Protein backbone atom coordinates (compact mmCIF):
# COMPACT_ATOMS: atom_id res chain seq x y z
CA UNK A 1 0.00 0.00 0.00
CA UNK A 2 2.19 2.81 -1.27
CA UNK A 3 1.56 6.34 -0.19
CA UNK A 4 0.04 8.34 -2.98
CA UNK A 5 1.94 11.30 -4.28
CA UNK A 6 -1.40 12.89 -5.14
CA UNK A 7 -3.16 15.11 -2.65
CA UNK A 8 -6.04 13.63 -0.70
CA UNK A 9 -9.04 15.85 -0.17
CA UNK A 10 -9.86 16.16 3.54
CA UNK A 11 -12.54 17.84 5.61
CA UNK A 12 -12.00 17.67 9.36
CA UNK A 13 -14.54 20.14 10.75
CA UNK A 14 -13.90 19.20 14.40
CA UNK A 15 -10.13 19.28 13.95
CA UNK A 16 -9.57 15.75 15.25
CA UNK A 17 -5.86 15.19 15.90
CA UNK A 18 -5.84 12.02 18.01
CA UNK A 19 -8.14 9.00 18.27
CA UNK A 20 -7.91 5.60 19.98
CA UNK A 21 -10.56 3.98 17.81
CA UNK A 22 -11.29 4.76 14.18
CA UNK A 23 -14.28 3.49 12.25
CA UNK A 24 -13.61 3.82 8.54
CA UNK A 25 -16.57 3.75 6.18
CA UNK A 26 -15.56 3.05 2.61
CA UNK A 27 -17.88 4.55 0.01
CA UNK A 28 -18.40 5.23 -3.66
CA UNK A 29 -21.54 7.13 -4.58
CA UNK A 30 -23.17 6.00 -1.33
CA UNK A 31 -25.27 9.05 -0.43
CA UNK A 32 -28.36 6.87 -0.05
CA UNK A 33 -26.84 4.62 2.62
CA UNK A 34 -24.00 6.38 4.38
CA UNK A 35 -26.13 8.30 6.86
CA UNK A 36 -27.49 5.09 8.35
CA UNK A 37 -24.04 3.48 8.44
CA UNK A 38 -22.55 6.53 10.21
CA UNK A 39 -25.36 6.53 12.81
CA UNK A 40 -24.88 2.83 13.57
CA UNK A 41 -21.10 3.25 13.79
CA UNK A 42 -21.50 6.19 16.18
CA UNK A 43 -23.87 4.20 18.41
CA UNK A 44 -21.44 1.28 18.47
CA UNK A 45 -18.54 3.55 19.42
CA UNK A 46 -20.50 5.23 22.20
CA UNK A 47 -22.03 2.01 23.56
CA UNK A 48 -18.91 -0.14 23.55
CA UNK A 49 -15.91 2.18 23.36
CA UNK A 50 -17.32 5.11 25.29
CA UNK A 51 -14.20 5.57 27.41
CA UNK A 52 -11.99 5.99 24.37
CA UNK A 53 -11.48 8.82 21.92
CA UNK A 54 -13.06 7.82 18.69
CA UNK A 55 -13.70 9.18 15.23
CA UNK A 56 -15.63 8.10 12.16
CA UNK A 57 -13.82 8.58 8.89
CA UNK A 58 -15.58 8.37 5.56
CA UNK A 59 -13.04 7.28 2.98
CA UNK A 60 -14.67 8.04 -0.31
CA UNK A 61 -13.90 7.42 -3.98
CA UNK A 62 -14.59 10.86 -5.40
CA UNK A 63 -18.38 10.44 -5.19
CA UNK A 64 -20.52 12.79 -7.22
CA UNK A 65 -23.81 12.06 -5.45
CA UNK A 66 -23.51 14.15 -2.26
CA UNK A 67 -21.99 11.30 -0.20
CA UNK A 68 -19.81 13.88 1.56
CA UNK A 69 -22.68 16.21 2.36
CA UNK A 70 -24.88 13.40 3.69
CA UNK A 71 -22.03 11.97 5.79
CA UNK A 72 -20.92 15.25 7.33
CA UNK A 73 -24.56 16.32 7.74
CA UNK A 74 -25.52 13.22 9.75
CA UNK A 75 -25.84 14.15 13.42
CA UNK A 76 -23.59 11.98 15.61
CA UNK A 77 -21.96 12.47 18.99
CA UNK A 78 -18.74 11.08 17.56
CA UNK A 79 -16.63 13.47 15.46
CA UNK A 80 -16.35 12.82 11.77
CA UNK A 81 -13.67 13.28 9.13
CA UNK A 82 -14.21 13.07 5.38
CA UNK A 83 -11.43 11.97 3.03
CA UNK A 84 -11.66 11.55 -0.70
CA UNK A 85 -9.46 10.31 -3.48
CA UNK A 86 -8.45 12.96 -6.00
CA UNK A 87 -10.88 13.71 -8.85
CA UNK A 88 -11.10 10.81 -11.26
CA UNK A 89 -9.46 8.31 -8.92
CA UNK A 90 -11.75 5.52 -7.79
CA UNK A 91 -11.20 2.24 -6.01
CA UNK A 92 -11.75 0.62 -2.65
CA UNK A 93 -8.02 0.07 -2.31
CA UNK A 94 -7.38 3.81 -2.64
CA UNK A 95 -10.01 4.44 0.04
CA UNK A 96 -8.43 2.03 2.50
CA UNK A 97 -4.95 3.39 1.81
CA UNK A 98 -6.22 6.83 2.79
CA UNK A 99 -7.82 5.35 5.90
CA UNK A 100 -4.66 3.57 7.06
CA UNK A 101 -2.57 6.68 6.48
CA UNK A 102 -4.97 8.87 8.44
CA UNK A 103 -5.34 6.31 11.26
CA UNK A 104 -1.56 6.18 11.62
CA UNK A 105 -1.48 9.99 11.74
CA UNK A 106 -4.13 9.95 14.51
CA UNK A 107 -2.11 7.26 16.36
CA UNK A 108 -5.16 5.02 16.57
CA UNK A 109 -4.97 1.72 18.44
CA UNK A 110 -7.79 0.08 16.50
CA UNK A 111 -9.22 0.62 13.04
CA UNK A 112 -12.61 -0.87 12.21
CA UNK A 113 -13.56 -0.98 8.54
CA UNK A 114 -17.17 -1.20 7.35
CA UNK A 115 -18.72 -0.73 3.95
CA UNK A 116 -21.22 2.06 3.41
CA UNK A 117 -23.47 -0.27 1.42
CA UNK A 118 -24.39 -2.60 4.30
CA UNK A 119 -27.86 -1.72 5.49
CA UNK A 120 -27.83 -4.51 8.08
CA UNK A 121 -24.99 -2.98 10.12
CA UNK A 122 -25.76 -2.60 13.83
CA UNK A 123 -23.75 -1.20 16.76
CA UNK A 124 -22.83 -4.80 17.66
CA UNK A 125 -20.79 -5.02 14.47
CA UNK A 126 -18.55 -2.28 15.83
CA UNK A 127 -18.19 -4.10 19.15
CA UNK A 128 -17.51 -7.50 17.63
CA UNK A 129 -14.97 -6.22 15.15
CA UNK A 130 -13.25 -3.80 17.52
CA UNK A 131 -13.11 -5.60 20.86
CA UNK A 132 -10.69 -8.36 19.84
CA UNK A 133 -8.10 -5.71 18.92
CA UNK A 134 -8.12 -4.54 22.53
CA UNK A 135 -7.84 -8.19 23.66
CA UNK A 136 -4.56 -8.74 21.86
CA UNK A 137 -5.61 -9.69 18.35
CA UNK A 138 -3.99 -7.78 15.49
CA UNK A 139 -6.51 -8.55 12.77
CA UNK A 140 -10.20 -9.42 12.90
CA UNK A 141 -11.92 -10.97 9.90
CA UNK A 142 -15.72 -11.11 9.57
CA UNK A 143 -17.91 -14.19 9.79
CA UNK A 144 -21.19 -13.71 7.98
CA UNK A 145 -24.41 -15.63 7.92
CA UNK A 146 -24.97 -15.61 4.19
CA UNK A 147 -27.19 -17.33 1.71
CA UNK A 148 -25.30 -20.33 0.35
CA UNK A 149 -25.13 -18.77 -3.12
CA UNK A 150 -23.96 -15.37 -1.91
CA UNK A 151 -20.25 -14.80 -2.10
CA UNK A 152 -19.26 -17.68 -4.37
CA UNK A 153 -16.11 -15.83 -5.36
CA UNK A 154 -15.04 -16.21 -1.75
CA UNK A 155 -16.32 -19.72 -1.10
CA UNK A 156 -15.29 -21.11 -4.49
CA UNK A 157 -11.78 -19.75 -4.83
CA UNK A 158 -10.56 -17.04 -2.40
CA UNK A 159 -11.21 -19.10 0.73
CA UNK A 160 -9.93 -22.50 -0.47
CA UNK A 161 -6.88 -20.93 -2.07
CA UNK A 162 -5.75 -18.76 0.85
CA UNK A 163 -6.44 -21.68 3.17
CA UNK A 164 -4.40 -24.18 1.19
CA UNK A 165 -1.56 -21.70 0.68
CA UNK A 166 -1.11 -20.30 4.15
CA UNK A 167 -2.68 -23.00 6.30
CA UNK A 168 -5.12 -20.73 8.06
CA UNK A 169 -8.89 -21.12 7.86
CA UNK A 170 -10.20 -17.60 7.49
CA UNK A 171 -13.66 -18.03 5.99
CA UNK A 172 -14.03 -14.53 4.54
CA UNK A 173 -10.56 -13.54 3.34
CA UNK A 174 -12.05 -10.93 1.02
CA UNK A 175 -14.76 -9.73 3.41
CA UNK A 176 -15.23 -5.97 3.39
CA UNK A 177 -15.72 -5.52 7.15
CA UNK A 178 -12.76 -6.13 9.41
CA UNK A 179 -10.52 -4.54 11.99
CA UNK A 180 -6.82 -4.21 12.59
CA UNK A 181 -4.35 -2.73 15.04
CA UNK A 182 -1.40 -0.46 14.45
CA UNK A 183 1.10 -3.29 13.92
CA UNK A 184 -0.79 -4.26 10.80
CA UNK A 185 -1.28 -0.63 9.78
CA UNK A 186 2.49 -0.21 9.60
CA UNK A 187 2.74 -3.36 7.50
CA UNK A 188 0.03 -2.13 5.15
CA UNK A 189 1.71 1.22 4.69
CA UNK A 190 5.10 -0.16 3.81
CA UNK A 191 4.58 -3.54 2.18
CA UNK A 192 6.26 -3.78 -1.26
CA UNK A 193 3.22 -5.42 -2.88
CA UNK A 194 0.90 -2.55 -1.93
CA UNK A 195 1.31 -0.68 -5.20
CA UNK A 196 -0.28 -3.35 -7.40
CA UNK A 197 -3.22 -2.09 -9.44
CA UNK A 198 -5.56 -4.85 -8.22
CA UNK A 199 -4.71 -3.97 -4.60
CA UNK A 200 -5.87 -0.42 -5.26
CA UNK A 201 -9.23 -1.81 -6.34
CA UNK A 202 -11.22 -4.84 -5.16
CA UNK A 203 -8.13 -6.90 -4.35
CA UNK A 204 -7.48 -4.82 -1.24
CA UNK A 205 -9.46 -6.93 1.23
CA UNK A 206 -7.85 -10.26 0.38
CA UNK A 207 -4.47 -8.49 0.31
CA UNK A 208 -4.95 -7.11 3.83
CA UNK A 209 -6.13 -10.49 5.14
CA UNK A 210 -3.27 -12.37 3.49
CA UNK A 211 -0.71 -9.98 4.94
CA UNK A 212 -2.20 -10.45 8.41
CA UNK A 213 -2.02 -14.24 8.04
CA UNK A 214 1.53 -14.20 6.76
CA UNK A 215 2.78 -11.79 9.43
CA UNK A 216 2.06 -14.45 12.04
CA UNK A 217 0.18 -11.99 14.25
CA UNK A 218 -2.81 -13.16 16.32
CA UNK A 219 -5.91 -13.09 14.15
CA UNK A 220 -9.52 -14.03 14.83
CA UNK A 221 -12.87 -14.15 13.10
CA UNK A 222 -15.78 -12.23 14.46
CA UNK A 223 -19.43 -13.01 13.94
CA UNK A 224 -21.31 -10.06 12.49
CA UNK A 225 -24.47 -11.80 11.37
CA UNK A 226 -26.11 -11.23 8.07
CA UNK A 227 -24.57 -8.78 5.61
CA UNK A 228 -27.45 -7.20 3.76
CA UNK A 229 -25.81 -5.31 0.96
CA UNK A 230 -27.49 -2.65 -1.04
CA UNK A 231 -25.41 -3.69 -4.01
CA UNK A 232 -23.76 -7.08 -3.88
CA UNK A 233 -20.52 -7.24 -5.86
CA UNK A 234 -20.08 -10.92 -5.13
CA UNK A 235 -23.23 -12.86 -6.03
CA UNK A 236 -23.29 -16.19 -7.82
CA UNK A 237 -21.91 -14.51 -10.96
CA UNK A 238 -19.24 -12.08 -9.73
CA UNK A 239 -18.33 -9.03 -11.75
CA UNK A 240 -15.36 -9.57 -14.06
CA UNK A 241 -13.38 -6.75 -12.45
CA UNK A 242 -13.92 -8.10 -8.91
CA UNK A 243 -12.97 -11.62 -10.03
CA UNK A 244 -9.80 -10.40 -11.76
CA UNK A 245 -8.76 -8.20 -8.82
CA UNK A 246 -9.39 -10.77 -6.08
CA UNK A 247 -8.02 -13.85 -7.84
CA UNK A 248 -5.18 -11.87 -9.40
CA UNK A 249 -4.15 -10.56 -5.99
CA UNK A 250 -4.09 -14.04 -4.44
CA UNK A 251 -1.98 -15.29 -7.37
CA UNK A 252 0.35 -12.26 -7.18
CA UNK A 253 0.98 -12.80 -3.49
CA UNK A 254 1.94 -16.42 -4.12
CA UNK A 255 5.11 -15.18 -5.76
CA UNK A 256 6.02 -12.89 -2.89
CA UNK A 257 5.27 -15.52 -0.23
CA UNK A 258 6.44 -18.59 -2.13
CA UNK A 259 8.95 -19.73 0.46
CA UNK A 260 6.30 -19.56 3.14
CA UNK A 261 3.39 -21.31 1.47
CA UNK A 262 5.48 -24.15 0.11
CA UNK A 263 6.35 -25.17 3.67
CA UNK A 264 2.77 -25.17 4.92
CA UNK A 265 1.00 -28.49 5.37
CA UNK A 266 -2.74 -28.76 5.99
CA UNK A 267 -4.53 -25.96 7.82
CA UNK A 268 -5.62 -24.86 11.23
CA UNK A 269 -8.69 -23.04 12.49
CA UNK A 270 -8.94 -19.43 13.51
CA UNK A 271 -10.36 -18.32 16.83
CA UNK A 272 -13.95 -17.07 16.74
CA UNK A 273 -15.30 -14.05 18.62
CA UNK A 274 -18.75 -12.56 18.87
CA UNK A 275 -21.29 -15.23 19.63
CA UNK A 276 -24.38 -14.03 21.40
CA UNK A 277 -25.66 -11.71 18.69
CA UNK A 278 -29.13 -13.02 19.52
CA UNK A 279 -31.44 -14.14 16.76
CA UNK A 280 -29.99 -13.28 13.40
CA UNK A 281 -32.44 -12.84 10.58
CA UNK A 282 -32.06 -15.59 8.00
CA UNK A 283 -30.64 -14.39 4.70
CA UNK A 284 -33.21 -13.84 1.96
CA UNK A 285 -33.67 -16.30 -0.87
CA UNK A 286 -31.34 -15.73 -3.75
CA UNK A 287 -32.54 -16.57 -7.22
CA UNK A 288 -29.92 -18.31 -9.32
CA UNK A 289 -30.21 -18.92 -13.02
CA UNK A 290 -28.65 -22.28 -13.80
CA UNK A 291 -29.18 -21.53 -17.48
CA UNK A 292 -27.10 -18.34 -17.26
CA UNK A 293 -24.25 -20.13 -15.51
CA UNK A 294 -24.34 -22.98 -18.02
CA UNK A 295 -24.39 -20.57 -20.96
CA UNK A 296 -21.47 -18.57 -19.55
CA UNK A 297 -19.48 -21.79 -19.07
CA UNK A 298 -20.13 -22.98 -22.63
CA UNK A 299 -19.36 -19.55 -24.08
CA UNK A 300 -15.93 -19.84 -22.51
CA UNK A 301 -15.14 -22.69 -24.89
CA UNK A 302 -15.88 -20.52 -27.92
CA UNK A 303 -13.70 -17.75 -26.59
CA UNK A 304 -10.88 -19.47 -24.72
CA UNK A 305 -10.60 -23.09 -25.87
CA UNK A 306 -7.22 -22.54 -27.55
CA UNK A 307 -5.86 -20.75 -24.51
CA UNK A 308 -7.17 -23.46 -22.17
CA UNK A 309 -5.57 -26.18 -24.29
CA UNK A 310 -2.23 -24.41 -24.06
CA UNK A 311 -2.45 -23.76 -20.31
CA UNK A 312 -3.80 -27.05 -19.06
CA UNK A 313 -2.18 -30.45 -19.36
CA UNK A 314 -3.92 -32.85 -21.74
CA UNK A 315 -5.60 -34.90 -18.98
CA UNK A 316 -7.04 -31.84 -17.28
CA UNK A 317 -8.23 -30.30 -20.54
CA UNK A 318 -9.87 -33.58 -21.60
CA UNK A 319 -11.72 -33.75 -18.29
CA UNK A 320 -12.91 -30.20 -18.77
CA UNK A 321 -14.22 -31.18 -22.19
CA UNK A 322 -16.05 -34.14 -20.65
CA UNK A 323 -17.73 -31.73 -18.24
CA UNK A 324 -18.74 -29.52 -21.15
CA UNK A 325 -20.55 -32.43 -22.75
CA UNK A 326 -22.77 -33.01 -19.71
CA UNK A 327 -26.34 -31.77 -20.05
CA UNK A 328 -27.36 -29.15 -17.52
CA UNK A 329 -29.68 -31.62 -15.79
CA UNK A 330 -26.74 -33.88 -14.92
CA UNK A 331 -24.08 -31.23 -14.73
CA UNK A 332 -21.24 -31.88 -12.30
CA UNK A 333 -17.82 -30.26 -12.06
CA UNK A 334 -15.46 -32.38 -9.93
CA UNK A 335 -13.76 -30.47 -7.12
CA UNK A 336 -10.46 -32.17 -7.94
CA UNK A 337 -10.64 -30.81 -11.48
CA UNK A 338 -11.39 -27.32 -10.19
CA UNK A 339 -8.45 -27.43 -7.79
CA UNK A 340 -6.11 -28.63 -10.53
CA UNK A 341 -7.22 -25.85 -12.90
CA UNK A 342 -6.80 -23.16 -10.24
CA UNK A 343 -3.31 -24.45 -9.48
CA UNK A 344 -2.38 -24.41 -13.19
CA UNK A 345 -3.63 -20.85 -13.51
CA UNK A 346 -1.64 -19.72 -10.50
CA UNK A 347 1.53 -21.08 -12.05
CA UNK A 348 0.62 -19.63 -15.45
CA UNK A 349 0.21 -16.14 -13.98
CA UNK A 350 3.52 -16.43 -12.23
CA UNK A 351 5.15 -17.56 -15.47
CA UNK A 352 3.49 -14.67 -17.33
CA UNK A 353 2.46 -17.16 -20.01
CA UNK A 354 -0.12 -14.77 -21.31
CA UNK A 355 -1.45 -11.28 -20.66
CA UNK A 356 -2.57 -11.11 -17.01
CA UNK A 357 -6.02 -9.66 -17.70
CA UNK A 358 -6.80 -12.18 -20.46
CA UNK A 359 -5.53 -15.04 -18.32
CA UNK A 360 -7.71 -14.14 -15.34
CA UNK A 361 -10.76 -13.38 -17.46
CA UNK A 362 -10.39 -16.77 -19.12
CA UNK A 363 -10.71 -18.48 -15.74
CA UNK A 364 -14.11 -16.90 -15.11
CA UNK A 365 -16.18 -19.11 -17.48
CA UNK A 366 -14.63 -22.20 -15.88
CA UNK A 367 -15.54 -20.74 -12.51
CA UNK A 368 -19.14 -20.34 -13.71
CA UNK A 369 -19.16 -24.05 -14.56
CA UNK A 370 -17.82 -24.87 -11.11
CA UNK A 371 -20.44 -22.57 -9.54
CA UNK A 372 -23.23 -24.28 -11.49
CA UNK A 373 -22.08 -27.59 -10.09
CA UNK A 374 -22.05 -26.11 -6.56
CA UNK A 375 -25.59 -24.80 -7.02
CA UNK A 376 -26.85 -28.17 -8.22
CA UNK A 377 -25.10 -30.20 -5.53
CA UNK A 378 -26.25 -27.96 -2.70
CA UNK A 379 -29.75 -27.03 -3.89
CA UNK A 380 -31.44 -29.12 -1.20
CA UNK A 381 -28.91 -28.30 1.49
CA UNK A 382 -29.23 -25.91 4.43
CA UNK A 383 -26.67 -23.12 4.82
CA UNK A 384 -24.80 -25.27 7.32
CA UNK A 385 -24.76 -28.30 5.04
CA UNK A 386 -23.52 -26.14 2.18
CA UNK A 387 -20.76 -24.88 4.49
CA UNK A 388 -19.74 -28.49 5.11
CA UNK A 389 -19.64 -29.05 1.37
CA UNK A 390 -17.28 -26.06 1.06
CA UNK A 391 -15.13 -27.42 3.88
CA UNK A 392 -14.86 -30.73 2.03
CA UNK A 393 -13.82 -28.90 -1.13
CA UNK A 394 -11.13 -27.13 0.87
CA UNK A 395 -9.83 -30.48 2.09
CA UNK A 396 -9.55 -31.58 -1.54
CA UNK A 397 -7.47 -28.46 -2.26
CA UNK A 398 -5.27 -29.34 0.72
CA UNK A 399 -4.88 -32.97 -0.32
CA UNK A 400 -3.84 -31.86 -3.82
CA UNK A 401 -1.38 -29.19 -2.72
CA UNK A 402 1.59 -31.37 -3.68
CA UNK A 403 0.58 -30.93 -7.36
CA UNK A 404 0.74 -27.16 -6.97
CA UNK A 405 4.11 -27.30 -5.22
CA UNK A 406 5.57 -29.60 -7.90
CA UNK A 407 4.22 -27.46 -10.73
CA UNK A 408 5.52 -24.30 -9.05
CA UNK A 409 8.97 -25.77 -8.51
CA UNK A 410 9.02 -27.06 -12.08
CA UNK A 411 8.60 -23.56 -13.43
CA UNK A 412 11.72 -22.28 -11.72
Amino acid sequence: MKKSSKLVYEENPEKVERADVVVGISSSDSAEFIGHTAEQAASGLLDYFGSKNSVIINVDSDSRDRTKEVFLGTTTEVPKVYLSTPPGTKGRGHNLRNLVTKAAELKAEAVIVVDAAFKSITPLWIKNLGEPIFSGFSFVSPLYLRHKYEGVLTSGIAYPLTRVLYGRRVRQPSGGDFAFGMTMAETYLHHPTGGEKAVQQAGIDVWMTTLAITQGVPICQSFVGRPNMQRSPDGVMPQVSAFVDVVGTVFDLMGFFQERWQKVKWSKPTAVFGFGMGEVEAPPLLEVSEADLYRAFLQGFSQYQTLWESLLDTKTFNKLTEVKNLPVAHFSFPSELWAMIVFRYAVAQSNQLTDRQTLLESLLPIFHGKSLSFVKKTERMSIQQAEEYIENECMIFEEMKSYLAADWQGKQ
Partner: protein
Amino acid sequence: MAKILVVDDEEHIRLLYSEELREEGYDVITAEGGYRLLDRIDREHPDLVVLDIKMVDYDGLDLLQDIRNKFYDLPVILSTAYDTFKEDMKSIAADFYVVKSFDLGELKRKIKMALEARASE
Protein backbone atom coordinates in the same frame (compact mmCIF):
# COMPACT_ATOMS: atom_id res chain seq x y z
CA MET B 1 6.88 -37.49 21.47
CA ALA B 2 3.73 -35.39 21.21
CA LYS B 3 1.58 -35.19 24.33
CA ILE B 4 -2.18 -35.61 23.82
CA LEU B 5 -4.84 -34.70 26.36
CA VAL B 6 -8.04 -36.74 26.01
CA VAL B 7 -11.06 -35.10 27.67
CA ASP B 8 -14.10 -37.37 27.93
CA ASP B 9 -16.51 -38.22 30.75
CA GLU B 10 -16.78 -41.86 29.66
CA GLU B 11 -14.07 -43.99 31.20
CA HIS B 12 -14.06 -46.64 28.48
CA ILE B 13 -13.44 -43.98 25.84
CA ARG B 14 -10.54 -42.54 27.83
CA LEU B 15 -9.08 -46.03 28.17
CA LEU B 16 -9.58 -46.92 24.52
CA TYR B 17 -8.07 -43.67 23.24
CA SER B 18 -5.17 -43.85 25.69
CA GLU B 19 -4.25 -47.39 24.77
CA GLU B 20 -4.47 -46.90 21.02
CA LEU B 21 -2.74 -43.54 20.94
CA ARG B 22 0.10 -44.78 23.16
CA GLU B 23 0.62 -47.59 20.65
CA GLU B 24 1.07 -44.86 18.05
CA GLY B 25 3.87 -43.41 20.13
CA TYR B 26 2.02 -40.52 21.74
CA ASP B 27 2.25 -39.56 25.39
CA VAL B 28 -1.37 -39.56 26.58
CA ILE B 29 -2.94 -37.86 29.56
CA THR B 30 -6.66 -37.80 30.33
CA ALA B 31 -9.28 -35.64 32.01
CA GLU B 32 -12.79 -36.60 33.04
CA GLY B 33 -14.36 -33.25 32.27
CA GLY B 34 -13.90 -29.54 32.06
CA TYR B 35 -13.24 -28.82 35.74
CA ARG B 36 -10.01 -26.82 35.94
CA LEU B 37 -9.18 -27.95 32.43
CA LEU B 38 -7.45 -24.70 31.52
CA ASP B 39 -5.21 -24.98 34.59
CA ARG B 40 -4.36 -28.52 33.58
CA ILE B 41 -3.46 -27.42 30.06
CA ASP B 42 -1.39 -24.58 31.50
CA ARG B 43 0.46 -26.99 33.76
CA GLU B 44 0.98 -29.95 31.46
CA HIS B 45 1.38 -28.26 28.05
CA PRO B 46 -0.26 -30.87 25.83
CA ASP B 47 0.47 -30.62 22.11
CA LEU B 48 -3.13 -31.46 21.20
CA VAL B 49 -6.50 -31.94 22.89
CA VAL B 50 -9.15 -34.51 21.94
CA LEU B 51 -12.35 -33.07 23.37
CA ASP B 52 -15.71 -34.77 23.84
CA ILE B 53 -18.58 -32.46 22.95
CA LYS B 54 -21.36 -33.81 25.13
CA MET B 55 -20.25 -34.45 28.68
CA VAL B 56 -22.58 -34.71 31.64
CA ASP B 57 -21.40 -31.54 33.33
CA TYR B 58 -19.77 -29.63 30.51
CA ASP B 59 -20.49 -28.43 27.03
CA GLY B 60 -17.47 -29.26 24.90
CA LEU B 61 -18.13 -26.35 22.53
CA ASP B 62 -17.98 -23.87 25.42
CA LEU B 63 -14.77 -25.52 26.58
CA LEU B 64 -13.44 -25.19 23.04
CA GLN B 65 -14.10 -21.45 23.18
CA ASP B 66 -12.33 -21.20 26.55
CA ILE B 67 -9.35 -23.13 25.21
CA ARG B 68 -9.14 -20.97 22.07
CA ASN B 69 -9.32 -17.77 24.12
CA LYS B 70 -6.42 -18.78 26.32
CA PHE B 71 -4.38 -21.16 24.17
CA TYR B 72 -4.76 -19.53 20.80
CA ASP B 73 -2.85 -22.08 18.78
CA LEU B 74 -3.43 -25.37 20.59
CA PRO B 75 -4.91 -27.99 18.22
CA VAL B 76 -8.28 -29.32 19.35
CA ILE B 77 -10.10 -32.26 17.79
CA LEU B 78 -13.76 -32.60 18.70
CA SER B 79 -14.99 -36.09 19.39
CA THR B 80 -18.68 -36.80 19.23
CA ALA B 81 -21.26 -39.54 18.91
CA TYR B 82 -23.39 -37.44 16.55
CA ASP B 83 -22.51 -34.74 14.05
CA THR B 84 -25.45 -32.43 14.81
CA PHE B 85 -23.07 -30.16 16.75
CA LYS B 86 -21.99 -28.69 13.41
CA GLU B 87 -25.17 -26.63 13.46
CA ASP B 88 -23.41 -24.59 16.15
CA MET B 89 -20.95 -22.15 14.61
CA LYS B 90 -18.67 -22.42 17.64
CA SER B 91 -17.50 -25.74 16.24
CA ILE B 92 -15.51 -24.02 13.47
CA ALA B 93 -12.86 -23.12 16.02
CA ALA B 94 -11.88 -26.79 16.16
CA ASP B 95 -9.12 -28.21 13.99
CA PHE B 96 -11.17 -31.27 13.11
CA TYR B 97 -13.96 -33.42 14.41
CA VAL B 98 -14.31 -37.18 14.50
CA VAL B 99 -17.35 -39.32 15.10
CA LYS B 100 -16.68 -41.72 17.97
CA SER B 101 -15.91 -45.20 16.79
CA PHE B 102 -13.94 -48.22 17.95
CA ASP B 103 -11.90 -47.86 14.79
CA LEU B 104 -9.61 -44.97 15.62
CA GLY B 105 -8.09 -44.71 12.13
CA GLU B 106 -9.80 -41.42 11.39
CA LEU B 107 -8.84 -39.93 14.76
CA LYS B 108 -5.21 -40.93 14.28
CA ARG B 109 -5.17 -39.42 10.79
CA LYS B 110 -6.62 -36.14 12.04
CA ILE B 111 -4.17 -35.99 14.95
CA LYS B 112 -1.28 -36.43 12.53
CA MET B 113 -2.63 -33.70 10.24
CA ALA B 114 -3.21 -31.23 13.07
CA LEU B 115 0.29 -31.77 14.46
CA GLU B 116 1.83 -31.48 10.99
CA ALA B 117 -0.04 -28.22 10.39
CA ARG B 118 1.51 -26.70 13.53
CA ALA B 119 4.96 -28.07 12.77
CA SER B 120 4.98 -26.72 9.21
CA GLU B 121 4.71 -23.06 10.16
